[in-house]
């Protein structure tokens, strides 16, 4: 199965198959995160007392992480631009910078969680903390998956192969970024 099926190379819908599948993945992810965050928001609105728990999160760590992700998104889109102009090596460099951003994000997250757990706030410490760890954890898994996939795609791109994938992993990465853009005020600012 070295050659791709004809089905993959057709584009009856008017956009490349790789990008089409990316959008459908994002649509189904919207429902996973949407269901979780909708549950969180309605609980939060019904339980004003959770604000006392939320007051213990580290706003500055969250803000720093937002900055890291925004910057990694910039690298991702610059990788796409490089891939568009056919410069696989440059695209690979930017993809690896994006992956570095994702890794930094996870390190900050780990540091932050260590502090909170040491302070006695764990998954079962209360309604807010349950949602806090679940939502951020689910998002963190997406970051981790993105970093791993991105490193594979960067290796291909460095050889000028499968350059169309650079744009697709970028779109996914921006989506993960957008999820965090909403998680940040939901978990860190609103209290």
């Amino acid at each position, binding site marked *: 199965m070295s050659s791709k099926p004809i089905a993959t190379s057709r584009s009856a819908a*008017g956009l*490349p198959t790789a990008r089409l599948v990316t959008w459908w993945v994002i649509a189904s992810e*919207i429902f996973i995160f949407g269901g979780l965050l909708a549950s969180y928001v309605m609980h939060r609105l*019904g339980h004003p007392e959770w604000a006392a*728990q939320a007051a*213990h999160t580290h706003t*500055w760590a969250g803000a720093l992480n937002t900055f890291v992700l*925004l910057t990694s998104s*910039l690298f991702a889109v610059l990788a796409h631009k490089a891939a568009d102009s056919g410069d696989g090596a440059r695209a690979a460099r930017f993809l690896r910078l994006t992956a570095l951003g994702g890794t930094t994000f996870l390190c900050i997250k780990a540091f932050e969680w260590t502090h909170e757990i040491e302070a006695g706030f764990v998954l079962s410490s209360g309604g807010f903390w349950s949602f806090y760890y679940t939502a951020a954890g689910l998002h963190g898994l997406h970051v981790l998956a993105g970093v791993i996939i991105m490193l594979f795609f960067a290796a291909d791109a460095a050889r000028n192969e499968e350059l169309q994938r650079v744009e697709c992993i970028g779109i996914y990465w921006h989506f993960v970024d*957008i999820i965090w853009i909403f998680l940040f005020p939901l978990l860190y600012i609103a209290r």
Partner: protein
Amino acid sequence: MSSPTHAHHPAYVKIWAVLVVLLMVSVLGPLTGIRWLMLLLAFGIAVVKAYLVAKNFMHVNIEQRWIAYLLIVSLALIVVLFAGVAPDVMKHRGLHWENRAAQQAVEAGAHAAGPAHE
């Protein structure tokens, strides 16, 4: 069909700079001490940031139009979910019913300052 994003790359660094400035404004929101202003800043800015990222980085603006509709329908269905569930979960009393456990939790929380430890 050729990829429509090919010729269209806006000034990404500028957009990134705008995003970072917006982030700083939303972080400074709590310092005002005005709750509604803080929430408005936090969530208003989140929406603006998401819009900027989706439009310029994900290129929804030059993607096929139905992709935007797909995303909007997805978000709309989440709103439907919220609208159908929230009357039971968010509210603690309604027509011929009340959720005493939730009311007690709110009351107990209001008295005890600090995190609910087990």
